């Protein structure tokens, strides 16, 4: 091989390596990963089969779909529906009652007893290994006609 060709190859390798290092330190690849995953989602291909598996492919938030806050009901229990991370420990606490269960799916639905009057209810979701829970607060008024 001629000297000039060898020098050109060496320089090419050097510049290529430098360019790669610069890209690694920017978000370029992460954006590419996200774009690829979004394409896979659009094609309904499970992410678990994708070469770039998303780290956060389950929900990591707690939401309460039902009931609405400050709702007035005329019964002594309420259905609480919501979404929480799969396998998280759900603790629903009020001054007079509590419900504890492991969230098997991402959505949950549970019947919760109410006392007459204002019920301050807090829904906690504990993720494995994390001592700080996700939480949502509700105030439900059970004002059944009692004299």
């Amino acid at each position, binding site marked *: 091989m001629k000297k000039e060709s060898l020098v050109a190859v060496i320089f090419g390798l050097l510049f290529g390596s430098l360019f790669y290092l610069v890209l690694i330190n920017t978000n370029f690849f992460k954006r590419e990963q996200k774009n690829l995953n979004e394409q896979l989602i659009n094609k309904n291909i499970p992410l678990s089969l994708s070469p770039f598996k998303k780290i956060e492919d389950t929900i990591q938030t707690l939401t309460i779909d039902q009931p*609405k806050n*400050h*709702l*007035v*009901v*005329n019964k002594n229990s309420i259905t609480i529906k919501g979404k929480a991370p799969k396998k998280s*420990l759900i*603790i629903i*606490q*009020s*001054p007079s009652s*509590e419900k*504890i*269960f*492991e969230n098997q799916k991402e959505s949950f639905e549970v019947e919760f007893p109410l*006392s*007459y*009057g*204002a019920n*301050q*209810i*807090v829904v*906690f979701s*504990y993720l*494995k*290994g*994390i*001592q*700080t*829970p996700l*939480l949502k*607060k509700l*105030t439900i*008024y059970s*004002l059944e006609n*009692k*004299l």
Partner: protein
Amino acid sequence: MKKIKQSIIVLLIFLFSFSLVGFKRIYSQQITASPSAQEEEKIDQLKEKIASKVAEIQNENNFGVSGYIDNIKDNLISINNDLGETYHIKTDEVITKYYQVINNRRQEIEPNEIQKGDFIVATGIIDGNQIEANNIYKDENFLIQTGQVIEINKDEYWIKINTLEKEAVILDIETYTKKFLLSIQDYRLESVGFSKIKEGDSVIFAIKKTNNKQINRASAIKMIIIPQEFFLK
């Protein structure tokens, strides 16, 4: 003879025509008579469905407000809630009823039995932060929080907790405090004594809240102890 035959034929044609007209009238009357009864039944069913749907929507959209009384002037009560929001409750001498919640039921009281600082719930027509109250209930407010146990005083029966809001709260453990330990195997609750609480455990607790001020120390109504081993899984 021929004329008679012709006359009979014409007469028969006339009779046949009239009978057709009559038959058509009778038939159309029958068609209009039976649907009206069916229609009435359908209308009744529709009315029932609409009525139950309206009731369902009313139940889903029946809201109340609650807070501590900040000011009472004539027929206007101002309350502040835990979030610092203010509501103005308009009362009426005839329409508004007053109750107190005692032992899981309501007891009617006089308007002058509610005072500044009381925690009340008001229901009625809500418009923004104004409410025209049909009913006012004097009730108790509670606070539910969680945090990590950072100190235990076995002589004076209190524990110090660092809450999620990074505030230090001292909880007095009374004889009436319900204490439960969460089993990390089957998530059941077991009633335990004060000695089972350890530093580093997480605690979910409920305390009475008598005003909007920040609480630094209170007696615990109930608490659930989550052993720190649960978080080491």
